[in-house]
């Protein structure tokens, strides 16, 4: 570990690191621009991680993060550099995890804004930089990946100056991969980012900016102290929760969790207070002394789920396991919601809300791997607001609970302001795509002679459907997108039901724009025709809006099943076959008179993915 900081980790009682020796910052950037790789170099150069223990994206510890090569969860670490304490937070770049960035920023005085020197500014570069500006943080901009042949640092620096108003001359040039320029960046962090302010003698005020659940230790919270001193063993008041807890252990992440006696103003560390329920240690909580209370700091707005789907165990008897897994996972990710839901097709499950599609995918994958479940998800949808003919209003996040068309006066759906950054050559195709998807252009601006910013307002449902994939494929991956909610708007939406032998199958109901209803109906009916096993009678599969059929297919009656031949008196074998058939039948979902194995529904929903 480092050299002569006047930190006194073990010094019981007295104050702590002097404020001007502390810097708190987050690394922010568009996805994949190299934040975690930069964090690696910083861990290395400051001696926090032994070179022998180093591995790429050291702070990405979750299996899923390592496999996908992306950061999902912000991570903080305390470094020492030239006698300074540097509290660093590596943040995720993906749009779904924007809330991780905003809460990280609340613990900092500055940011390092990384921009890939070959890609230039992209959608989350803008979004995250604006977040930092709104919070009045000092921005240290750096062009990364200058080792790449395609890097154009001069041009990109100009772009940064023009678009973000940061003087090109102030933009550092680094390679997080080779380490070039990283020392200079560390020096710039110390020079340019202001020291924290705070009064060690004031009552304790610490902001909880993260909480995770550890099976052995309970809730482990990340805190930034603003005023006063957080002491190990102290009786604490959680202001918003209005509960008192004992600080069982406080410490710093070096990145190894290392207990300390005190954390003073400007310091970032962890707090364990014997809490088993993350609900009592919510992100945004203010921690103060039980005996000497301070006011709450400005918290966060809790992120609101925007995308919803049903999650069901493939095996019905795993319902209780799923519930427990959801409870436990939520301890580490409070940004998704769930509530019980029953589906005729899929049985017992949960309606879950997520921040976006990636978030949905990740929660589901974590449930499957970390809790050993096999799940099926219904198609994602957004939340609708209805005005009913009787004058009341209703919010619907599940298409199958939509009232009949006769009861609905109007439907509103969420819209988002979508910022697309693209090379000039793709402007035409993106405008076409946005218009097809009911977008309204708000702005088009040239960021440089070859890069354009397009701003559209369009229904979130279109993004959830396939806008992102379409955009990526039309631009060979060169365009990027960010969006933010801008409220609800009235749309000409209809609910399309899918009926099996005249009985609706809830899992396949969808709310779509009237112009796309037929397409959806056609797609679902033909898909189901392939998957629904033949019955003893013909089974019509229909798509309908209200009572009106818009598409139809038929599963012809089954005429023959297995006529097992005789194996010289082997009746046991026959009986086992029959047992299996009986078991299979028992497990069948009964949709009216039609028997459908759950797998058929599962397959139909999987094909969607």
């Amino acid at each position, binding site marked *: 570990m480092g050299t002569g900081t006047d930190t006194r980790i073990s010094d019981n009682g007295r104050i702590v690191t002097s404020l001007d020796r502390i810097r708190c910052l987050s690394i922010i950037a568009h996805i994949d621009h190299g934040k975690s790789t930069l964090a690696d170099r910083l861990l290395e150069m400051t001696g926090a991680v032994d070179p022998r223990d180093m591995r790429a994206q050291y702070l990405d510890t979750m299996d899923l993060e390592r496999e996908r090569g992306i950061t999902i969860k912000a991570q903080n670490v305390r470094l020492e550099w030239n006698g300074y304490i540097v509290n660093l937070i590596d943040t995720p770049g993906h749009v779904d995890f924007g809330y991780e960035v905003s809460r990280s920023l609340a613990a900092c005085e500055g940011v390092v804004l990384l921009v890939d020197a070959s890609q230039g500014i992209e959608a989350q570069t803008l979004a995250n930089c604006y977040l930092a500006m709104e919070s009045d943080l000092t921005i240290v901009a750096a062009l990364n990946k200058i080792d790449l042949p395609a890097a154009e640092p001069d041009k990109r620096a100009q772009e940064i100056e023009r678009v973000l108003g940061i003087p090109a001359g102030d933009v550092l040039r680094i390679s997080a991969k080779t380490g070039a320029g990283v020392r200079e960046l560390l020096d710039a962090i110390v020079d340019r980012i202001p020291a924290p302010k705070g009064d060690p003698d004031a009552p304790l005020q610490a902001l909880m900016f993260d909480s995770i659940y550890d099976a052995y230790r309970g809730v482990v919270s990340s805190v930034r102290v603003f005023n006063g001193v957080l002491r190990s063993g102290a009786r604490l008041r959680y202001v918003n929760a209005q509960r008192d807890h004992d600080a069982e252990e406080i410490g710093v992440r070096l990145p190894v969790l290392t207990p300390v006696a005190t954390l003073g103003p400007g310091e970032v560390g962890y707090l364990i207070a014997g809490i088993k329920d993350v609900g009592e240690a919510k992100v945004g909580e203010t921690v103060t002394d039980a005996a000497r209370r301070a006011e709450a700091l400005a918290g966060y707005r809790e992120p609101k789920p925007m995308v919803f789907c049903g999650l069901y165990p493939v095996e019905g008897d795993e319902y209780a396991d799923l519930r427990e897994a959801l409870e436990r996972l939520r301890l580490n990710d409070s940004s998704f919601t769930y509530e019980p839901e029953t589906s005729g097709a899929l049985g017992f499950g949960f309606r879950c809300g997520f921040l976006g599609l990636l978030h949905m995918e990740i929660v589901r994958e974590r449930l499957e791997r970390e809790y050993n479940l096999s799940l099926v998800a219904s198609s994602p949808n957004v939340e609708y607001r209805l005005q009913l003919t009787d004058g009341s209003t209703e919010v619907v996040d599940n298409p199958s609970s939509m009232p009949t068309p006769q009861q609905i006066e109007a439907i509103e759906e969420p819209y988002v302001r979508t910022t697309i950054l693209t090379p000039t050559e793709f402007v035409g195709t993106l405008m076409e795509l946005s218009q097809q998807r009911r977008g309204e252009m708000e702005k088009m601006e040239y960021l440089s002679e070859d890069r354009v910013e397009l701003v559209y307002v369009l229904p979130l449902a279109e993004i959830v459907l396939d806008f992102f994939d379409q955009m990526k494929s039309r631009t060979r991956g060169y365009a990027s997108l960010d969006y933010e909610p801008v409220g609800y708007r009235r749309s000409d939406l209809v609910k399309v039901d899918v009926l099996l032998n005249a009985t609706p199958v809830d899992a396949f109901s969808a709310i779509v724009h009237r112009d796309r209803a037929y397409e959806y109906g056609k797609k679902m009916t033909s898909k189901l025709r392939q998957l629904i096993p033949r019955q*003893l009678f013909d089974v019509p599969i229909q798509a309908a809006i209200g009572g009106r059929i818009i598409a139809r297919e038929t599963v012809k009656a089954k005429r023959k*099943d297995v006529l097992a031949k005789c194996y*010289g*008196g082997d*009746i*046991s074998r026959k009986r086992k076959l029959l047992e299996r058939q*009986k078991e299979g039948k028992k497990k069948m979902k009964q949709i009216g008179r039609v028997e459908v194995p759950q797998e058929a529904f599962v397959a139909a929903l999987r094909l969607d993915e």
Partner: protein
Amino acid sequence: MPFGVPFGVYVHIPFCASRCDYCDFATWTDRDHLIDDYVSACVTDLARRRASGLPIATSVFFGGGTPSLLAAEQLTRILDAIERADGAEVTVECNPDSVDAAKLGAYRRAGVDRLSFGVQSMVPHVLASLGRTHDPANVRRAVDLARDAGFARVSVDLIYGTPGESPDDWQRSLDGALALGVDHVSAYALTVEPATALGRQVAAGAPAPDDDLQADAYLRADTVFAAAGLDWYEISNWARPGEACRHNELYWTGGQYVGIGCAAHGHTGGRRWWNVRTPERYIAAISGDTPAVAGSEVLDPEMRAEENFSLALRMRTGAVAGARSAAVVSELAEQGLLERGRLEGDGERIVLTRRGRLLASDLTARLLLAGAASPDSAPAPGHPPSLALGTIEC
């Protein structure tokens, strides 16, 4: 010996000249050197069983594999070791390729009274795609030899729904089989078994048999056979009156039998049991005087009742459905899938219709789930239910 309680002996002969593409039976094409020892083992097995009180056989069935691959003396050595009732039925499964006049004559003299030929098809290209080695002419010759040797009871096995078999091809096989003058036919839908050449081809993308075409083929067979005087008595079996295979009927009526040879199954004293699977292990077990039986099961009354019900439903005589399934019985009767007969005990006798037979597995499962087989109405373990032998009027 008088013809008493039915009791069967099944002898498994696990040797074939070549393996047909669809076949996953316990049979081997490279172990002819074991035949002598195997025959001896069967004889020893029988001797030991006789010593510990084997009932007198009312039927014997040599199945395979290809029993006719054995030299006549080998097969008759085994048969001689079985004590039989007067008029006992003795069947040998034969491959048309592996019979000659001398062999069939020897069978006849030793007491064999029934032959079952694996014919499968009477159309060369269908035989070829099944991987069979004989042609329709061999079949004709084999059946003629059987007649000459004095066999009145001859049966043929057919397979329908081979990919590439047209409705006309099937009609030719039906006509061809009937032209042989047989009094019994078994017709099976080609089943794709995973561990076979066919199974691998289908897994690799070759066409699988088509259920609808197989259904058509079945209905056509049923019509053609009935017109020729062969009525169905079990889903896959048709016979002239009195010519049903009594041994196979034992299987379907919960009757008792022993299994001799590897992979053979037996049902005695309320227990279903089976022998070790390979000829080597069977020979080793018998010569080492260790049990050749590899496993067994005793069914609880409920399972026993369900088994009896499902087997009975495969037959022309039908099954008695307990009162609890009345609603499902009515529904299926309305759909023309079964016929209701007279009331018996606390249920009524039901028989599958032609269309119903094609859906036997599904319908059986449905009826069982509805409570068609109640343990109270089950016959005592080990005793064939009332509809056993002799009650079939075709």
